[in-house]
């Protein structure tokens, strides 16, 4: 019987009931299961009786009789049995038991004792259950608090996974009040951590290295959360050589296999890790595992998109070996311009795909026209002119590219309205179309064609400046000229010819 719970029971009330039932002040005692008096400890021989009851150690409910001396007899019975054995005992001292002039009617007394025992044990159980539930509820609040906090982190987070992880670990370190929280994924060589140090850790790098190796292997093979509080825990032999930190390590599974873990570290002076800490770490592990799975999915989806796009480009460029690398270069230059213009992330994403896929429509141009080294006839030129519209027709089925397609569709429009396919003019030409037009012009001049070798960077810039305001958007040309003037890295990358100064 826990004293805490017992103290909340008002036993004086039971004493009064008993007094009324027997018509006198009764010598009423309650003992815990070890025989220590909890009520009536001032009654003569109460302590001696408690010891005798505990020593008898009977399992039967009672009532039992115990003669203390010639005049005094105690009747006692159990308060009930729990998983932990006897709850305790209830006893009444009777003078001159069994004599004709005994002041108490024994039958009535034992019946009353029975009722009192039932009353006290019920009350005890209700109180005890309530306390357990309250404690459990407190722990659930704790978990919920953590889950909500994690959820708040995810909301409105579009930035990179690493940053979400990092901020999540930081808030976890603070919330759990631990020195170090780490997410370790050795197969991918990932080890992210956050600290909320109660005291400096001088060799943190070394500690992290040990975590990736021995500790991870230990967690992987045990497959369950491990808590090492004691410095002399024998399991430490498998893990840390001479580090005295308290460790809580929790495996994270992906497709049934432990591929990462959460580790909490505390300095030895901090309180031991508890079951509450274990549960919280497991909640955190689940959350991080979901996040990591989502991230991997996104990553593989991204790779799939990229590969699909590259296949499309491959199909176009296979038709004309001279245009090999053209899409990639125009894409690179367009992104440089887009970033220099300070386009927001979602627009850059559209520009990314629009510039990469702008020539996909060339797939519909007959090879004889596309690769013809001599001048095109007007009929042949018509084929060329439909390619941006073709690009649009091919790509419009892809919902994700809805906006990106505009850049591809209008990259052959001219600023003065003389371009194709729609003859749009000035600002009516979608911005991405105008950007791609500048990079496309630059690359057509500087790259080699079936009928001529690539010309120099200087020639291209001169030509771009010349057509600025007629063919090309002067604002974008200005941005591009600024980029070009800074001896950009792409001159090397694309091996662009230079004119000797």
């Amino acid at each position, binding site marked *: 019987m826990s004293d805490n719970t017992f103290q909340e029971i008002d036993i004086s009330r039971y004493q009064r009931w008993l007094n009324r039932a027997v018509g006198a002040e009764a010598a009423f005692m309650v003992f815990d299961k070890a025989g220590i008096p909890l009520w009536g400890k001032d009654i003569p021989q109460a302590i001696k009786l408690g010891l005798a009851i505990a020593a008898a150690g009977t399992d039967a409910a009672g009532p039992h009789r115990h003669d203390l001396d010639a005049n005094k007899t105690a009747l006692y019975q159990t308060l009930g049995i729990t998983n932990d054995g006897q709850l305790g005992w209830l006893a009444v001292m009777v003078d001159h038991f069994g004599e004709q002039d005994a002041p108490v009617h024994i039958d009535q007394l034992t019946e009353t004792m029975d009722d009192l025992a039932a009353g006290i044990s019920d009350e005890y159980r209700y109180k005890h259950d309530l306390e357990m539930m309250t404690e459990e509820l407190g722990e659930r609040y704790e978990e919920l608090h*953590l889950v909500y906090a994690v959820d708040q982190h995810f909301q409105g987070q579009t930035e990179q996974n690493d940053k979400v992880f990092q901020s999540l670990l930081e808030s976890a370190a603070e919330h759990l009040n631990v020195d170090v929280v780490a997410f370790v994924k050795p197969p991918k060589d990932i080890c992210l951590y956050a600290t909320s140090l109660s005291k400096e850790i001088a060799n943190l790098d070394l500690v992290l290295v040990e975590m990736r190796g021995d500790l991870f292997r230990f967690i992987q093979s045990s497959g369950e959360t491990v808590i090492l509080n004691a410095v002399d825990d024998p399991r430490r032999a498998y893990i840390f050589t001479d580090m005295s930190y308290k460790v809580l390590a929790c495996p994270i599974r992906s497709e049934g296999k432990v591929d990462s873990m959460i580790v909490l570290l505390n300095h030895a002076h901090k309180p031991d890790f508890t079951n509450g800490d274990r549960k919280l770490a497991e909640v955190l592990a689940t959350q991080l595992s979901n996040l990591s799975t989502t991230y991997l999915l996104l990553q593989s989806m991204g790779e799939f998109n990229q590969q699909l796009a590259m296949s499309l480009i491959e199909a176009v460029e296979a038709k004309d070996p001279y245009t090999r690398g053209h899409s990639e270069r125009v894409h690179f230059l367009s992104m440089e311009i887009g970033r220099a213009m300070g386009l927001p992330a979602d627009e850059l994403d559209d520009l990314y795909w629009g510039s990469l896929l702008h020539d996909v429509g060339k797939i519909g141009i007959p090879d004889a026209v596309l690769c013809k080294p001599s001048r095109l006839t007007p009929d042949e030129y018509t084929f060329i002119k439909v390619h941006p519209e073709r690009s649009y027709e091919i790509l419009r089925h892809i919902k994700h590219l809805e906006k990106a397609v505009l850049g591809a569709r209008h990259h052959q429009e001219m600023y003065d309205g003389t371009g194709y396919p729609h003859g749009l003019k000035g600002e009516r030409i979608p911005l991405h179309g105008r950007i791609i037009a500048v990079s496309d012009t630059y690359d057509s001049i500087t790259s080699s064609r079936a009928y001529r070798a690539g010309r120099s960077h200087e020639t291209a810039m001169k030509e771009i400046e010349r057509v600025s305001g007629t063919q090309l958007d002067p604002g974008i040309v200005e941005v591009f000229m600024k980029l070009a003037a800074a001896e950009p890295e792409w001159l090397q990358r694309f091996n662009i010819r230079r004119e000797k100064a």
Partner: protein
Amino acid sequence: MKRILIVDDEPHITRVLKLYLERAGYAVDTAQNGQMALAEILKNEPDALMTDIQMPLMTGRQLCLALEEQLPQRTFPIFVMTSMTDREHREWTQKINNLEFLEKPLSMRAMTRALDKHFGSAKTDGGASHV
């Protein structure tokens, strides 16, 4: 021993707070609404007040404003328990000094840490034991 007054109309919340605060070495009194709390405070000021907002008869907000008016020299801190998602509705607290938020669902650790931090070494009990 520092005495904390908890004001909440939901018994499951007050029970949990009481249990964990007592374990952390605090004495705890409870009130079921702002009215009861105000009467209790005017009679006997606690060392800290923790109050919910939504309550019948007198809300936590009304209680805080009444305390500002009736106890302008108040020194004990007020901890307002509010939902994490309800960040927008906090402006009214700006002109009330010595007031902090505890976010619901409440973390027992965060709560005892906030109180321990407030009382510093003044607390009689040794370190807070969390369970």
